[in-house]
């Protein structure tokens, strides 16, 4: 099969990256000074039994090297320790948070990719006209706004019209399925919109320059010489080629999405991973912070891998 090497290489790279992240995680938290950080078993209000169990689980009486091996083993079993704050396993807390985060982030990201691609193509197509100036400057404007601040602005604008905090209306007792869904949908609008708006600007700029580069390629001239209509050329020849750099650059902006999600969840009290990170920072809940960091990193690495494979699918030139 074509490019099986490439696929294996990308998967290998992802695995190594995750391993590096896992190691950084260990090093940062165990080798850093301060007993609160070094000692995983210092769960406040914990029973003697839980403390002892954790000590054994993570080998806290052993050397750093052995601890590292034990840490890896526990990680393989999904054991990230116990949250100081919630006195619950971190993995359980994170699972709930992740489920809450995903729809909000997905919606916002899709929105941004859609608007970004559309405005980027228009900007490239209308190069040197006021239309380009307008699309590019509004994209730059939204790109420049601090995420948390844009969220706050939307709250000021839409307070009273849309719910500005939380995921559901807690005063809604025993709602039916549709009622619950409607409630959820109304709560998701502002956080998703904020994410969509801060992200779209970057995508507009990426798509615009990728399209401009493609429109300068020789095969575009060939397509014109064949007598194809301009929009057919854009759709069938330019966009397909421009997708290649776009895929890569969108994958590289994943870190930015994560950052945006954290800030937005704080502003809108959305009970997801970002909120969990925030609480963990405030409470110095290190196991939780560690777990969240690991989860975020792994998600980004996996999304990157998907982008790499998509690139492979789009570009027939990749053979190795």
């Amino acid at each position, binding site marked *: 099969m074509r490019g099986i090497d490439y696929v294996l290489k990308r998967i290998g790279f992802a695995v190594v990256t995750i391993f590096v992240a896992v190691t950084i995680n260990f090093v940062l938290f165990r080798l850093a000074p301060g007993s609160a950080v070094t000692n995983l078993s210092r769960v406040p209000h914990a029973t003697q039994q839980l403390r002892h169990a954790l000590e054994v689980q993570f080998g806290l009486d052993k050397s750093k090297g052995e601890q590292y091996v034990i840490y890896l083993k526990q990680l393989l079993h999904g054991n990230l320790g116990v949250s100081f704050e919630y006195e619950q396993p971190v993995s359980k807390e994170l699972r709930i948070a992740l489920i809450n985060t995903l729809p909000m982030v997905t919606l916002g990201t899709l929105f941004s990719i859609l608007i970004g691609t559309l405005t980027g193509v228009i900007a490239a197509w209308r*190069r*040197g006209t006021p239309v380009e100036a307008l699309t590019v400057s509004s994209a730059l404007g939204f790109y420049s706004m601090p995420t948390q601040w844009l969220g706050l602005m939307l709250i000021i604008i839409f307070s009273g019209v849309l719910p500005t905090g939380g995921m559901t209306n807690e005063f809604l007792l025993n709602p039916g399925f549709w009622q619950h869904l409607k409630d959820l949908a109304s709560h998701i609008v502002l956080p998703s919109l904020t994410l969509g708006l801060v992200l779209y600007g970057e995508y507009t700029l990426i798509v615009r320059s990728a399209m401009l580069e493609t429109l300068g*390629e*020789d*095969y575009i*001239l*060939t*397509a*014109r*010489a*064949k*007598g*194809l*209509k301009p929009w057919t050329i854009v759709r*069938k*020849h330019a966009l*397909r*080629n421009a997708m*290649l750099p776009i895929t890569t650059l969108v994958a590289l902006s994943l870190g930015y999405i994560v950052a945006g999600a954290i800030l937005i969840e704080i502003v809108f009290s959305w009970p997801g991973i970002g909120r969990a990170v925030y609480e963990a920072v405030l409470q110095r809940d290190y196991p939780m912070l560690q777990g969240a960091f690991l989860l975020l990193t792994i998600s980004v690495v996996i999304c990157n891998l998907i982008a790499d494979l998509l690139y492979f699918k*789009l*570009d*027939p*030139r990749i053979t190795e």
Partner: protein
Amino acid sequence: MSAPLLRVEDLHVWFDLAEGGELHAVQGVGLSLEPGERLGLVGESGCGKTTTALAIMGLLPPSASVSGRVLIDGTDILSGGEAAMRPHRWVDVAIVFQGAMNALNPVRTIGEQIVESLELHNRARGTAARSRTAELLEAVGIPAGRAARYPHELSGGMRQRAAIAMALSCDPRVLIADEPTTALDVMVQAQILELLDALCRDFGLALVLVTHDLPVVAQLCDRCAVMYAGEIVERGPLDLLYHSPGHPYSRMLFAASPDLAGLDEPVLSIPGAPPRLDRPIDGCPFRPRCDSAFAACVERPSLQEVAEDHAAACHLNDRVPA
């Protein structure tokens, strides 16, 4: 007299420059081409030959402005702008670009790209289009099975053959070949030239060959137009241009071409550089480099007939009445 197949009248092309001002790339070019005729358009790089070729098909970039007429069977196709030219492209005039160019879309197979033009101009659809594509590929010497290959999977020579097959897909009457053999190695160059020669004969094509390479023109063309600084300085049958050039530039160009000059004659190079086209040209544009310049050359010469079917833009011809 019936109108010629392709006629270009008083073609001018200007390009807007980023730093302001404009570049007068083509300055009043006139050409005409009969069915089956083969014309070589030669000159140094930057002399406007490629721009002329692109202007004939209306393929100029947005930064260009153009004036003049491009007539096909006596009908002006340039005056309607880009949209009006579209139906003539590939059907009346097709083009093959430089071998070095990335002229084929890298993410679509060569078969798809040929089928696309067949379907666009309603020549064939579906299965019929695919079998026509196979025929075309065979005609240029590519095994039909390669239709499913992507451009990067073919060698440079094969890519150029595929580009030629694509250009022939809608049975054009004029084929423009812009430096078709540049960047190919010598063996492949010869093969491509032979292929073009055979195809023009078999398909009854009129050919405009744009090149800086005189031996290539000598091999393929019967007529030749020499361009310098955006204008045609001499045109006529190739033999006439070679044996009795009417313009010092043509004479020096032929002398500078090692394959044509013969081994015993010293190969000359033309000293100096062509004039800048972003400012008005004063007098004869070739004057600073010319070995025979004289007083009259402060006036810009226009293209005058020096013999039957042979014209040159040089004041030397004024002194010697024909």
